[in-house]
């Protein structure tokens, strides 16, 4: 609610509004622009894939196809979570039916409308890897909403990601 109020207050400033789906990971709040989201699959237990790259969260069954998921926890070097997780089904970089992939998060929250006036670019203090994954942050009233770069999360692109941090995992 508080965020909505923020939005209303700022509406006059001719700033563009972005509808963002908020997701939770531990205590962090992240956002994915809803135009990238095809569907939300709740409470899924992905099937692990032995020998897959570490960022692969496993496979889930999605509309007659098998969907590869990317684990946000793994990408951010957090310990894996036991139990079911929510999945955002995102449009892939490649067009066509087989192009989509899933983003595995702890839970999916509400849709927030944020204003570009509150947006700040990635701080330079972030490591290279996070700078690649994040697309700045929105200042909410009581917290920060870290935007994820949906296109960079596509498994096809993740291979090219600086993996310095992932080696530890």
């Amino acid at each position, binding site marked *: 609610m508080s965020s909505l109020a923020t939005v209303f207050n700022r509406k006059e400033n001719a700033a563009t509004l972005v509808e963002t789906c908020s997701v939770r990971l531990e205590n962090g709040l992240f956002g994915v622009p809803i135009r990238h989201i095809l569907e939300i699959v709740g409470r899924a237990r992905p*099937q692990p894939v*032995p020998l897959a790259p570490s960022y692969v969260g496993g496979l889930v069954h999605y509309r*007659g196809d098998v969907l590869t998921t990317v684990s946000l926890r793994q990408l951010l070097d957090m310990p894996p979570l036991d139990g079911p997780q929510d999945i955002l089904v995102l449009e892939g970089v490649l067009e066509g039916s087989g192009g989509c992939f899933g983003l595995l998060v702890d839970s999916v929250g509400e849709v927030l409308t944020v204003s570009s006036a509150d947006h700040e670019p990635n701080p330079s203090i972030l490591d290279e890897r996070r700078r690649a994954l994040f697309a700045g942050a929105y200042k909410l009233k009581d917290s920060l909403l870290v935007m994820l770069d949906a296109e960079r999360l596509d498994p*096809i692109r993740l291979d090219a990601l600086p993996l310095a941090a992932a080696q530890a995992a």
Partner: protein
Amino acid sequence: MALDELTREFLIESQEGLDRMERCLTELEERPQDAGLIGDIFRSVHTIKGTTGFLGFKRLEKLAHAGENLLGMLREGKLTADGPITTGLLQLMDGLRSILKTIETEDSEGAGEDTALIERLEELQAPAQVQVQYAPVLAVALHGGATADASQQEDQALRNGAIPPPAFTDAPSPETSTVAIVAEAVLEKAQVASDGDTGKARAQGAGTAAESTLRVDVSLLNRMMNLVGELVLTRNQILQATASDPGLTLLSRRLDMVTADLRESVMKARMQPVSNIFSKMPRIVRDLSQMLGRKVRLQMEGQDTELDKSLLEAIKDPLTHAVRNSLDHGIEPPDVRVAAGKDPEGTLRLRAMQEGSHVVIEVCDDGAGIGVEKVRAKAVERGLITAERAAQLVERELLQLVFLPGFSTAAAVTNVSGRGVGMDVVKTNVEKIGGKVEIDSRPGQGTTLRLRIPLTLAIIPALIVHSVEQSFALPQGALSELVHIPPEQAATAIEWIEDVPLYRLRGKLLPLVFLDRLLMPGGAHKASTEKDNFIAVLNADGRQFGLVVDGLADPEEIVVKPLSAVLKNIGLYSGATVLGNAELALILDPGAIALKAGVTMSSLEQKGREVEQGTEAEAGKSLEYLLVEVADRRAAVPLADVLRIEQLKVSRIEYIGYRPVLNFEGQLLPVEDSGGVLAAVGSNPEAQIIVVVCREGNRQVGIAVSHVLDVAAGSDLFEAGTSTRAGGVTLLKSRVTGVVDLGGVPPVRVDEGTPAAWSQSNGELVEAAR
């Protein structure tokens, strides 16, 4: 490049027109006077010409126009369709095809010149003495081409194809028509046509087909197939969930039935008759036999047999290879044939039929057959096998050598074959889609090549195995047997060279791959002495190894789902599937596992052994027997012929007259019950019996047995004082055991009207595929 709707429509229609033209042209050679055929060809070309006009494809229009003129004269009876004219028309068709292809890929006609072809078409009109009448039109059509130097034209014409100079076209030369192509279906059609008005009958046929059919994008069909697969899985889960609720039973039964029907319909929608690829063959046979100086009659049967579209595409090349091989190596030149007392005209038979869940395509010639001694010598010469090894191989095993990469018996490399890329390509391509290739040859009598293709690709039988606390699917195609090693035996049964695990499989060392260690290197794994070990003996691309898993579940028909690129790159999985219990399972790729684990065919010697093993499995000459008990007596069934062992209720057995038969997945299986096993069970319909399903030639037979005892190696027995092998018995576990004579099981006669097909390969009556 994106084509507009109109152009795409035009391309599809033109392709269909040209396909029809190709069929008609090959028939035309047989019956040059058939006005209906000429009319058909004329219409095809005319339609192309008409449409190109307003689409603005000038090059295509010019060529089609030149062809139309020639066809017009044929139609008016001013010319007769002799050899050179047919050749010219075929070249016209090729020319049109290649321009259409260019339009499809580049959205333009390309910059090629058709002057030579157009002039040839013009020259072909010459004998009819009506040039004057057509001259003005031609002048337009020829455009700039007419200025070309005359001798140069002729030169080019000669280079492009074996067409005689214009002077010779007056009289149809006797040796031009070396091929007579007889397609059975075509003959039938001709019969009908001769009764009534050909043109009308054809036109009517075409009209109704166009009204009742619809073009559907293949990707849409794929999507439908996918969704149906999904529906099947959802149904499975609903059936499980509602099993205990009587109120829902009726509804879920209904859902079950509708889903099954829907799945069948969608599968059917993807089916296409094999005539789609068979129809290309007359042309190939015609061209090749002219080039090679052979006389060949092509017979085709079972063109209505249907196959999944993607599979049909996949066997197109192997089949073409096989036909080329038959013409080049199989059927001899006419003089050789006459010298051998055969009809100078060879016969090449293409036969398609459905056998259970497979489609069998036979390429059968009555040529020289494969000389096994020649094969032996060549294989040694090319270093594919050692001389000692070759000396030990029997005829059957030698035949399998032709499938080795790099093999060819052709003395000279021609541009048809002889480069040694023939049969192994056929074999690999067919095996890639889960099929099998069998070869059968008799010196002097001919060769039969049999391609066994599964009906569909999207659904394959697989064994579900467990490892690292997950389920994996292992395609049945690569699986040859399963061995169970309980924990207490693991210490002795699994032997080690350094850190390489091996298992003695009937005296031969089989390399083992532990799936858990492969999938989770460095993980903590239970020692094999602490758990049950199941060895799945796999044969992948000639590499034999045992995959050790923790557990086995039932075999399942799985729907193959593609994996994303990032998971495909791991190189171990060929796809994923959803099991009946809604669990996801990765499909293991046996070939990739062998590569990853370093199982290779290291030496030539080993290759020879692979071949030997291959033949044992395929040829039925194996010395391995399945030991069964039939009413207190022991009997042996050659293991290579055993397809599967079924345990079923005795009530499943039905009778035709006195003959017990089994309706197995819609197929009739004669059951041999010489031991009276069925009678012994009596009238209790719930009693379980065991039926060993065997392959016998082209058919399958069942043998009712009391128990299945063991698998054992048998050895030949010789009659005392002679060196004659005793037939029908073998020495199994040092006991003389009778071998079940599968050939002796009489075929089932469903009724008098069932046509029995004559199988050349084994010279027995077999059931026509129903």
